[in-house]
């Protein structure tokens, strides 16, 4: 049997692929920002919050980390409407990604918080900073700086996981690949190309985030904190 591969037939559909990439990146960017915030809040709750708060955060983290993303997504998209909450595929995807990333980010940030040297608290107290100020200005930036590589990896894992969102008809990259192969029956070529694009996106996102972190998230204050 002779197999003929025709990658051009897939690449000819580049507007669909481009739209898919745009959606994948948009979903990732939004969930990275919101999920990061959720993660920091939960990490704070677990490390410094009152007992009930710490317990709520711990339950959330364990529930999410021990169930598959696809089940979380289906629960939100198919399950919640039965309970009266109707969501578009895009909104459901974003919520699922934020909830998912938030749990992992909480664990990652907490590891950073745990590594804060005791003297930092004493120094901050001596400067007369309040509890919130201490967390925001003294504890958090160096903690973020320390765990940033792990955070970047997790954001990339969530981006790759977002391929599942195509199953509820969010028009991201894997949805585009599926649409293309259903039109021209070039399944093998479609998924090879989609895989290659994901790989490039993963590499690009890692570079961008590695560059962005120290410049915009935990700049000079973190450097001062780490010393």
């Amino acid at each position, binding site marked *: 049997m002779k197999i003929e591969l025709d990658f051009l037939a897939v690449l000819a559909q580049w507007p669909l692929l481009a739209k898919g990439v745009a959606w994948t990146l948009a979903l990732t960017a939004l969930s990275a920002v919101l999920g990061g915030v959720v993660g920091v809040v939960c990490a704070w709750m677990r490390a410094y919050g009152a007992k009930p708060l710490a317990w709520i955060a711990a339950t959330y983290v364990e529930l999410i980390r021990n169930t598959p993303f696809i*089940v*979380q997504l*289906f*629960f939100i998209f*198919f399950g919640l409407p039965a309970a009266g909450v109707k969501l578009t595929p895009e909104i459901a995807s974003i919520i699922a990604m934020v909830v998912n990333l938030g749990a992992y980010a909480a664990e990652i940030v907490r590891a950073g918080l745990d590594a804060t040297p005791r003297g930092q608290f004493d120094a901050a107290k001596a400067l007369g900073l309040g509890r919130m100020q201490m967390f925001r200005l003294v504890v958090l930036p160096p903690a973020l700086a320390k765990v940033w590589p792990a955070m970047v990896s997790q954001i*990339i894992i969530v981006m*790759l996981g977002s391929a599942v969102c195509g199953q509820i008809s969010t028009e991201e990259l*894997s949805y585009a690949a599926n649409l293309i192969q259903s039109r021209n029956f070039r399944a093998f070529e479609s998924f090879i190309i989609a895989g290659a694009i994901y*790989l490039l996106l993963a590499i690009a996102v890692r570079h961008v985030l590695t560059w962005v972190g120290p410049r915009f998230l935990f700049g000079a204050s973190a450097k001062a904190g780490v010393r």
Partner: protein
Amino acid sequence: MVDFSLWDIARNLLMSVRWTVALSLVAFLGGGVVGLLLLYARIGGGGVAGKLVGGYVQVFQGTPLLIQLFLAFFGIAALGVNVSPWIAASVCLTLYSSAYLAEIWRGCVDAVPKGQWEAAKSLGLSFAQQLRLIVLPQAARIAIAPTVGFMVQVIKGTALASIIGFVEITKTGGMIANATFQPFLVYSFVALFYFALCFPLSWWSKRLELKMSASGR
């Protein structure tokens, strides 16, 4: 219409747990064997083999598992070879696991002090002997916790096999949800079953990790 009681939902899901467990075991054990071979190639195979394994790991870690499954199932079928969901999911998850395990274990081998290699070499052991008798036993101790942790990732990964038609917990849940019109309830149950499978492993992995760090590596 057939009425599904709460017990019917739970029972049907429970029956499908074995397929999730079976696929997880195949992927984990198969991935372990292939992962060991990759590990060996990476540390002992010289520059080219090391680069190839590095590329292999990068491809599997840098692309979605879903796309890998699509490629193994729909992609291969489009080339004229029909594969069953069982075969496609097993092969795909095995390769996926092997890439992660090879990477995890390489980290553990790297964590063994260099002096151990040198000492083994000075005793006249061959490379295979150095690895098997001296380095791997020490690396294995460090590797247990992250390896158990990775089992959780494998179990969660098998949920994606539902999309290519492999009937495990998630797929069964979808079918029951369609039959009963109670997706909220059914997906809660599905999540619960995964939690029951994964949480003990997570907990065990964390305990092992704490034990390791307490005993000073």
